[in-house]
């Protein structure tokens, strides 16, 4: 069956190759979101700190990352950093760039989540004698998680799609594998459509899961 030029037999043949790429994509995204969450947690808290030494650098970091294209950031990490003596291989560069990028967006997620908690919670906590870190840990962050977790889920999905950009530094993730296929077969429609389909197969279940979690928590309200 050749529907709209899409060659199913070709697709089936290249599927294992593409799936290997998908595994790399998921791996890259997972590591980057994990590291980005760590970065984002500290940066998010630093953003709302009263000490300028924390709030200013973190604000600059977020501004820079959000104001420049991810593609540029990836290329800077891989091609540009050697000038500073930091020579990283492709996978490390990819994960580093994606982590730093998602860290900035996750910092904003944490900041918004934390700020959404009423001031009275913090006041009650500190007037009981709890210090800042205890207040964050036991009072604010557990409550903020309700807002933060779905947003983190969406960030994961967004980063999964954005990770296709690391194909520019020849990381063999899903998109790159598709490109290599059509460099062999001279049919770009089938592999590219196949790549898109595989992305959908990953992102659709994930976004359903995030929606489900959001709904469940709304009921508890």
């Amino acid at each position, binding site marked *: 069956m050749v529907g709209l030029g899409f060659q199913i037999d070709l697709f089936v043949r290249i599927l294992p190759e593409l799936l290997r790429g998908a595994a790399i994509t998921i791996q890259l995204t997972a590591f980057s979101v994990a590291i980005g969450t760590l970065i984002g947690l500290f940066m998010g808290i630093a953003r709302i700190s009263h000490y300028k030494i924390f709030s200013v650098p973190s604000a600059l970091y977020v501004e820079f990352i959000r104001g420049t294209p991810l593609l540029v950031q990836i290329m800077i990490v891989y*091609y540009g950093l050697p000038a500073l*003596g930091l*020579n990283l291989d*492709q*996978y490390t560069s990819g994960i580093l760039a994606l982590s730093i990028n998602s860290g900035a967006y996750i910092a904003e997620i944490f900041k918004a989540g934390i700020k959404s908690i009423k001031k009275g919670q913090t006041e009650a906590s*500190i007037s009981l004698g709890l210090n800042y870190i205890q207040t964050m840990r036991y009072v604010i962050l557990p409550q903020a998680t309700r807002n933060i977790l779905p947003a983190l889920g969406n960030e994961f999905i967004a980063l999964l799609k954005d990770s296709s950009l690391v194909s520019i530094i*020849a990381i063999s993730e899903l998109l790159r594998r598709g490109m*290599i296929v059509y*460099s062999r077969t001279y049919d770009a429609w089938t592999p590219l459509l196949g790549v898109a389909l595989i992305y959908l197969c990953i992102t659709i279940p994930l976004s359903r899961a995030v929606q489900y979690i959001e709904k469940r928590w709304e009921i508890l309200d």
Partner: protein
Amino acid sequence: MYYTFNMGHYSDSSCFFAIFLFCINNLTYEFRNIMYHKIQIAKHLLVIAITFLHTSTRKYETEVLEMKRIGQISIVLLLILAVVAASGCTGTKSKKLVEEGYLTIGTEAQYPPFEIIKPDGSFYGFDIALGEALAKELGLKPKFVDTDFASIIASLNSGKFDVAMSAMTITEDRQKTVNFSDPYFDAGLSMAVPINSNKQTVNDLNGAIIGVQLGTTGDIYASELKNVKEIKRYAHTPDAFLDMKNGKVDAVINDDVVNKPIVASDPTSFKVVSSLLTVEQYGVAISKENEDLLLKINAALKKLKENGTYDQIYDQYIVNWSDE
């Protein structure tokens, strides 16, 4: 609102950091590279610093002393950064291999029959086989890194790989920034056109759109043609052919020995005309700071040509090319 920022739980945060660095270290085998040593140094320094700060400042919980603590931490972090950066400065421009025990070879792997990536993800082609043979002669294991052709020399010089083997023509211009080994392949440009095209030579290219790969000798040659309508520069040669198949490009100018297998894989779409517009030779590109390696590669090349390995590879990949 008044908060005091209590940094009392250093052991927790240093554990966190150590785990974070450990993860970066050991994610997959691909991560073991020169960063390894720098990360070790940074790790040790950081743990020492954090322990020191933890024990010395446990008693102090007021704002004035907290500012001092913040100052201490900043100084320690800056020191660590300086050490990491400094060790980087001495590490990469030397003649050391990118990775001990390996000959790291950069190549742009969408270029049959010299380098392609097979469905199982492995590198395959003339340059690949030759590269493996060279590495063996040098007593090293081969390791290939896929890269863009346009930036291959910059990446070579910034230390991403030890050598570049990517069907690179030896030109005077390139020799200004890198060294080349003795030539290992005789080649030349030709023109590929759609199967139904009536263009036979470069003189038929008035008002035509030409596709080339960015940074190649095909690019340079096409750029000097007069009266062409437009030159489209692609990151990879197959992209140019794909566009030609879709009618967006009238001709592709590229290495003849590459045009042939590409056309052969889709003979109803393309044909090669006007062969050997130029005479070129490929060489292995090596950083100018690695004269030691240059000598070794030349010696190895000579040996491979003398003992028949070179001919074997030529037979398998050029004469009998098949990408199955």
